[in-house]
């Protein structure tokens, strides 16, 4: 759009005197745009903007507003519903689940960043090496990605079940008194579901990265080899820098996955007893029968603020690239 306007401008400038006279007579501001341009502009900016405001900014601002109330999803919101910063105050000082949930989200992010995502990238690099049966491996690792997280949750719920689950039976501990409680022990259940998450996440990252690797110009690697670089050197000094755009996407995807973590923990036990996550606290407070919409909104605002960090980082990078 911007390009079209600027390229069209010089041609119009030639006619400026004539047009300018016209504009002056009508006491209108001089413009470079024809009526057609304006309508087009209005449509192209207006429609997305309207949708954006209606569907994203509206609800977001409504959430922020609701976070200052104690509204319970019944009846109108009146002045009596506004409680100032009480929700935030309780969240940070009295609510025993907020900080655990916050830390669980951080652990989730750390696990994905340090373990699951690198593993996915590693698999991608391996599978990129034209080994025999690479298609089969790709399919196997990618298979979980086509499943919804809810299904992944159900599958692993059954695998981890203490007495009739596959894992404890395979370990032969299902009938003993000291069997491992994968889902009920608050010290380990978060890691149980992180394994379940990774099962899917690794395949997702792998396929994204594999696509990127395929697009790397083979002559670059050849040149590196000719120069005597080892495999490892080639990857870190040549391939990785070339893959910069994909790397950014991987980082963003990982951050988003960590922030939106919800499904598996919710399927397992509605996110309690060690599986608290910010998204689940929002649900349990505001959408469940509890209907504490105000308090849930306050948690949502905090999650929004946290989410803004990777979003702003990503956008500012993209903007810089474009500029």
């Amino acid at each position, binding site marked *: 759009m911007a390009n079209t306007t600027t390229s069209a401008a010089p041609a119009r400038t030639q006619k400026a005197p004539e047009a300018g006279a016209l504009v002056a007579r009508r006491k209108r501001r001089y413009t470079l745009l024809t009526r057609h341009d304006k309508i087009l502009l209005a449509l192209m900016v207006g429609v997305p903007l309207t949708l954006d405001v209606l569907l994203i900014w509206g609800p977001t601002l409504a959430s922020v507003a609701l976070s200052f109330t104690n509204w319970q999803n019944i009846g109108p919101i009146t002045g009596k519903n506004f409680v100032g910063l009480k929700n935030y105050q309780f969240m940070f000082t*009295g609510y025993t689940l907020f900080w655990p949930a916050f830390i669980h989200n951080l652990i989730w992010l750390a696990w994905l960043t340090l373990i699951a995502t690198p593993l996915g990238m590693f698999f991608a690099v391996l599978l990129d090496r034209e080994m025999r049966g690479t298609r089969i491996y790709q399919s196997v690792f990618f298979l979980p990605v086509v499943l919804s997280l809810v299904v992944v949750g159900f599958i692993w719920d059954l695998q981890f079940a203490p007495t009739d689950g596959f894992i404890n039976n395979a370990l032969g501990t299902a009938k003993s008194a000291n069997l491992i409680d994968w889902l009920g022990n608050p010290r380990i259940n978060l890691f149980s579901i992180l394994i379940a998450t990774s099962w899917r996440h690794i395949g997702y990252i792998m396929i994204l990265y594999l696509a990127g690797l395929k697009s790397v110009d083979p002559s670059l690697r050849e040149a590196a080899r000719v120069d005597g670089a080892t495999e490892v050197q080639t990857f870190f000094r040549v391939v990785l820098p070339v893959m910069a755009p994909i790397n950014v996407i991987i980082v963003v995807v990982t951050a988003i996955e960590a922030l939106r973590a919800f499904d598996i923990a919710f399927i397992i036990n509605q996110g309690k007893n060690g599986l608290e996550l910010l998204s689940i606290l929002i649900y349990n407070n505001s*959408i469940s029968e509890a209907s*504490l919409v105000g308090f849930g909104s306050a948690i949502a605002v905090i999650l929004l603020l946290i989410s803004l960090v990777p979003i702003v980082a990503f956008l500012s990078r993209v903007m810089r690239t474009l500029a």
Partner: protein
Amino acid sequence: MGDSREAKRVRNRLALRDAALNLDLDLSRRDVLKIAGYGSLAAFIAACGGSGGGTTSGITATGGKMSLGSYNTDPGSKAGTQAIVDAFKAANGGTKVTLNTVDHGTFQNQISSYLQGTPEDVFTWFSGHRMRFFADKGLATPIDDVWDAVKSNYTSGFEASIKGNDGKAYAIPTDYYPWAVFYRKDVWAAKGYNVPTNWDDFKALCAKMKSDGLIPIAFADKDGWPAQGTFDILNLRMNGYDFHVNLLTGQNGQKWTDPKVTAVFKKWSEITQYYSPAFAGLTWEQGADQLLRKQAGMYLLGLFVSDEFKASGSQADVDQLDFFAFPHLGTQYDAEEALDAPIDVFMMTKKSPTLNSDLGQAKAFLEFMAKGSTQVLYWKNAPGSIPTANDADTSQYPALTKKAVQIVSNAKKITQYFDRDSRPDYAGPNGMQGFLLKFLSNPSGNTTTLQQQMQAFWDSLPAE
């Protein structure tokens, strides 16, 4: 295979739990005293077998159409609901019933939005606190005319359970079931166990079972709500019905930091060593399976545990199932013989767009639901739900159901269940479910901090 069955059961279990306890109704509100005055619900239930429900004219209509929003999604209750709808259609001049069945958990979670939006004419719900809540908000239509027509078919305890805070009738009670300690007769006979009547006998029996290689008490709290049943019964036995009601509703300044609550946790910690290993990762069905497979000796649960036995497909197993009331703890409140026994109801919405045109049919449907024959139709599909009407044909009840009716009749005080007697935001995963799991992760620890957290959470909740 297992997966879908499990998924289904999760839903069923939710459904059943909720259905469980509405008898006491809104204990928390002004009715507390009124209900206390009624004394034993048992009396009215025992009085069952009277005359059939009355029929009225003028308020109902035949033919036409109506709609029903149902949360009965588990196979038995879904079939039962369909059977009722079919029977109603046949009996009411071919009234066309639009049945909208919604997953139980979803229905419950979205009830506020549902009732404020475009609900069906009639919907399934719980009696008591949660019924009154929506009645107070003007989201349910009073049905005094229907109730007047059918109340001769109910005992006064049920009547109390469906009255709103304004004294109007808001629901038709359709089924209920008690919570008790379940066991297998064959296992007990083989080992020579006897029903314990006091706390020491109970603990001694647990120790004996443990030495016999059994899990003494099946316990499964992955979903958070089953532990509330143990809290209910211990609190009722130790501190009495009035204290329990005040505590769960915050009335009369009752606080969770009360030493009486500490005492409940302390008592509870004496039996947690006998619980199923890894209970925080087990669903109630998995707990029921431990009882079914003779791995566990006892199981404190609602009568719906019999549905799990029935699902095993073996009538021989179902026949072995028996139960006893939770043992006495040697307090003055033993005499109350209190227990959880929730009631399910059908209610009429307020904002249904079709209610004006369907009012007569909707009332006819509610009246139909108050008949014993209708409720028995449902019970045949979902045997964990005992009919509430006086004219229900009890002759076909198996011994287990008869005993369940009996145990409720013996109770001087009846509660619904923690999550029906208290406010839902407090009873849920955010609140009591999480607090109890925390307690159970270290039952012998000091509960002072935990109780302070419970009270702080309570204090943070907006006025209901």
